């Protein structure tokens, strides 16, 4: 590195302070500053404030060599008057560095030196205008990092072009075309916090203060646990592995959005444990049950007319979200709650929704479009077309009582069964037994059969507003 030519800022990743190559470089800098070859005001070295934690941990674990080495480097930088500090939240958020380059150090070459590709890559992704340089030490020499932006993945549903699809193709997507790849951190990147989920008894919210977690009332889920707390509030605490940087940003973005639908259970505030992000707080839904419990009774525990109302409410909420460029993503019966006493319907688990370029990383194989199979869903943005798969499957199961891929020859369901639609558009035989899997299909309004047949047999989509109109029309015609 030519250190005397241009005004220079070096930003150091913590491990660089232990690198022999850096030590050699530091000796050169030291010599040049002391001999006035370079002006200290033209040469700055920025370290991350998390280095003090590293020093503490070396001291605590008795690694004296490392402890003294880092302290030595810092005192040399201080003595030379080169040292500055920023806080990147442990190399997660580089906005302060990028901002310095744009303002105070606009005349300087700013180089981020790190031997960790994840750090370089993460900074590079945030540094959209490529203002910074990225270098690493290889055999005590500085070398450039080769960094790439992820290829933007375009996921398109294969909808067969027929007259009907053309008809329904008008202005379907509300998802902005510019958002194609999801915002995500890579697997090697560190998680935000380390405290084990079960060790947390209280959390703090700036809006609600301290919230006690009721350890007697726990709902377990794949990404963490949900606890009851005070005042009809519930707290979702993520497992360590789920507490990722993009999740905090996503939940903060969701809280900032102006969402006014009390039937969609939305995050109210982020909660912290000792200043660490651990989850969010939301309203508790009382006396409601997941629709998955009705699914196992083929929905025969509910009046047929109520099954229609459930579908219409679900579609209206879905439309409300789609209009805001939000996809539910992991749409399944477990995430829809029904309160029978008031006939109210709620959608839960909203933090998993696909919001702008924050992806929906979770799925249930049985309710996921074929396009998404085998993909890392944290990296991929889903399309509206793909959301029509769970929408149609759920509507079908509520109204017909059985799965759309029910195999009349074997009776098997589940994600391992071929997705073939065996229901005939016209039912020839007389179906009188209510236990017959064809019963609700055979006696359903023909327009309903047609819409499902179109979708599952011919990939023709009935859009959400059209579904609402259709179901309301059928209800009007009912006695």
């Amino acid at each position, binding site marked *: 590195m030519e250190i005397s030519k241009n005004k220079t800022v070096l930003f150091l990743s913590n491990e660089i302070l232990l690198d022999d190559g850096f030590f050699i470089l530091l000796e050169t800098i030291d010599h040049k500053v002391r001999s006035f070859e370079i002006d200290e005001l033209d040469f700055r070295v920025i370290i991350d404030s998390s280095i003090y934690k590293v020093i503490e941990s070396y001291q605590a674990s008795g690694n004296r060599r490392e402890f003294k080495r880092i302290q030595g480097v810092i005192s040399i930088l201080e003595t030379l008057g080169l040292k500055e500090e920023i806080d990147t939240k442990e190399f997660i958020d580089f906005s302060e560095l990028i901002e310095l380059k744009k303002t105070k150090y606009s005349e300087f070459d700013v180089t981020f030196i790190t031997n960790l590709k994840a750090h370089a890559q993460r900074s590079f992704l945030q540094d959209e205008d490529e203002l910074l340089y990225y270098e690493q030490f290889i055999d005590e020499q500085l070398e450039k990092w080769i960094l790439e932006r992820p290829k933007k993945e375009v996921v398109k549903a294969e909808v067969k072009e027929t007259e009907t699809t053309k008809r329904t193709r008008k202005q379907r997507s509300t998802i902005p075309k510019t958002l194609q790849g999801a915002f995500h951190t890579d697997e090697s990147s560190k998680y935000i916090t380390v405290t084990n989920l079960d060790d947390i008894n209280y959390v703090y919210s700036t809006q609600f203060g301290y919230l006690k977690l009721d350890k007697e009332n726990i709902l377990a889920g*794949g990404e963490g646990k949900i606890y009851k707390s005070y005042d009809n509030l519930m707290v979702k605490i993520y497992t360590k592995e789920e507490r990722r940087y993009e999740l905090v940003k996503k939940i903060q973005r969701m809280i900032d959005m102006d969402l006014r639908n009390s039937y969609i259970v939305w995050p109210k505030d982020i909660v912290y444990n000792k200043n660490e992000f651990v989850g969010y707080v939301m309203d508790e839904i009382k006396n409601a049950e997941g629709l*998955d*419990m009705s*699914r*196992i*009774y*083929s929905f*025969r*525990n*509910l*009046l*047929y*007319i109520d099954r229609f109302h459930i579908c219409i409410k679900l579609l209206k909420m879905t439309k409300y979200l789609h209009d805001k460029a939000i996809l539910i993503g992991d749409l*399944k019966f477990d995430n829809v709650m029904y309160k029978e006493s008031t006939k109210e319907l709620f959608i839960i688990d909203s933090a998993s929704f696909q919001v702008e370029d924050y992806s929906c990383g979770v799925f*249930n*194989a*049985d*309710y996921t479009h074929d396009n998404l199979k085998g993909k890392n869903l944290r990296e991929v943005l889903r399309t509206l077309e793909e959301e029509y798969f769970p929408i149609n499957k759920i509507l079908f199961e509520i109204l017909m*009582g*059985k*799965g759309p891929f*029910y195999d009349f020859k*074997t*009776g*098997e*369901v*589940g*994600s*391992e*069964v071929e997705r073939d639609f065996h229901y005939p558009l*016209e*039912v*020839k035989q*007389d179906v009188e*037994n*209510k*236990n*017959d*899997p064809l019963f*609700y299909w*055979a*006696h*359903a309004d023909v327009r309903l059969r047609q819409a499902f047949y179109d979708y599952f047999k011919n990939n023709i989509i009935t859009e959400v507003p059209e579904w609402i109109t259709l179901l309301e029309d059928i209800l009007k015609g*009912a*006695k």
Partner: protein
Amino acid sequence: MASKFDLFGDFEPVKINSSMKFPLILVLDVSGSMTQRTPYGRKPKITELNEKVQILLEFVKADPKASQITDIAIVTFGGEVQVQAPFDNVKNVKFKPLRAYSSTPMGSAVNVALDMVNRRKKYYLDNGIEFYRPRIFLMSDGAATDQYEQAAKRCSNMVNNREVKMYPIWIGEGEYDYILKDFSPELEPKTIKSDQMYFEMFRSLSGSTSNPDDDPFDRWFKDEF
């Protein structure tokens, strides 16, 4: 054909039994060697097994959804093949602690289990009950002592024809006995190597009964975590 039923008018909600089922059959080795301890465990294998099956049944019975959809059957082999519990809703399954003795007629036990699975599937189909593919949980600590080849072939055919899912578990010495593999054309048998692993197996199996779509047991078996 015009419908003579008015779906909106004619029906009241009914309390029916769950019309969606998750059938699981435990095929368990109770031969003489099960009185010994595992290399990692402190108790005789049969005691350990009795405890785990009891915990599994209690968990499934206590879960609102699993208790409705899970149909369990238990077949044992030790000297002879015994149907400890025919297929029934888990709430009706009575479990008496198993005793271990004698030889290992694994082939005959699997044959009995396959017959039971087929009868159960016919019952579901005849009654319009949806079901997830039946799971056979085959656990053994020794080599089959009967003429097992025919049963193994029949079982493999049914797995290949996607009629049943077979999960062979080995709790014997060393890596698994190759006979188990003959019953399972898709999945390599899994060797239990620690108490922790034994515990996780039953915990994930409980999880699958309340959430067959997610199927934590299948993921545990395939090391997909």
